[in-house]
Every structure is written in C-alpha cells, then in structure tokens.
C-alpha cells in the first residue's frame, strides 16, 4: 500500500471530531455532497463486502428494482 493511500485513509478516518470541524471537514463534506452526481445521472457502481455474506455489486441490486441506500455509522 502506498503512502498516498495511507494518507487518504488517515484523513478520511479522523480520530477527533472537534479537530475535523475546526479544520473545515464538515463544510468540505457538505460541498462534496452537492458536487456528487445529480438526480437523473448514472449512479456510481461498486462492489462491496456484505456483513455475513459474499460481496455485492450495487448494479446487481438496482438491476431489477429501485434501491434505497442509506449511509451511516454507529453515531
């Protein structure tokens, strides 16, 4: 794994929420949301591991019916 990848992972998985806010991370996230693909455009497709099961390709889930995707974490 390269240094750039490690840096990207470290920046994404911030250890301290207050520092993240102080550095504008929450504002950058909001901007990223509005810069993300718009309604009517094709959704980005990825394959992800599923807890307790085999990996899942998102396009396999929306191929035959609409897909509701909720993003989140414990908090």
């Amino acid at each position, binding site marked *: 794994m390269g240094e750039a*990848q490690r840096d*990207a*992972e470290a920046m*994404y*998985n*911030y*250890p*301290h*929420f*207050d*520092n993240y*806010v*102080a550095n504008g991370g929450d504002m*950058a*996230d*909001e901007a*990223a*949301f*509005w*810069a*993300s*693909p*718009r*309604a*009517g*455009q*094709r*959704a*980005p*497709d*990825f394959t*992800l*591991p*599923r*807890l307790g*099961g085999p990996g*899942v390709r*998102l*396009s396999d*889930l*929306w*191929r*035959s*019916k*609409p*897909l*509701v*995707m*909720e*993003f*989140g*974490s*414990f*908090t």
Partner: protein
Amino acid sequence: MFIYTREAHPGENVPHHDSFERKLAGAELLREEAGIRRDILVDDLAGTVHRAYGLMPNMTWVIAQGGRIAYKADWTSAANVEAFLVRFLGGRGERPPGTTPVMYETQQIEFRYPDRKRFTDHLLRNGPLAVAEFEKAQKLWAQQGAT
C-alpha cells in the same frame, strides 16, 4: 440496504478505523446494537464509495431500476424517503404510463424535537471523548454562526 462508512464521532470505546478489521467490527456492532436487519455493506478503509456519493454522515440515495439516481438527501428522513417512494413508484412499482421523468432540487427546513439524551447516549457508547469533542464542535459552530 445500509452502507457502513466511518465513525463520525469516534471515542474510547468505538474508535476511528485504523484497519479494515476494526471497521468490520464497527459494522457488526452497529448491526447488533442498532438492530439493523437490512443488508449492511462495508465501504473500504479510504471511504471510496462514501466519497463517490458525497461524504455526508447520514444520507440516503434512491437509485431507480437500471441505475439512474432518483433521489438524494444529505440527511436521512424516513418520512421523506417513504413519501418520495410512494410518489416515484406511483403505487404501481413502475413509472406510470404517459409520464416523463423530470429532475428538480429541493432544500427544506424541518422542525423536529431533538432527542438530545438519545444522541448523547449514542455518543457515550462510543466513549466520553465523543461527547466532549461534540460539545467543542458545537462551540465552534456557534462561533461560525452555524447554529
């Protein structure tokens, strides 16, 4: 379907992810303690999928059959998602004959009763550090005029 991203408020008990194994453990904890019965997919450690969809901590997207984005909200409101799905599917599970899809954007203000105790309990589950850092962040937002 639920996509597990990153811990928005890491603490002593549920820290930030420094390995994929730790991230998997966080997803399993979420399934067990939050009682999520939907499939949980786990993003990679760099948040590749989360980045592609906009990085907000609690957002919902609806993808239409075939792969076009039908709905995106930077904060999940179950009532809004449900109301959208009822309209979008027209109660028939498919686009009503004779209709044309059009896109428009909405921003809205909602009034809701904040369940501070429940939220603080969640933060405490992650650890006292999560509570203290959220309080510091609130002061920062107040200084910025955001609250």
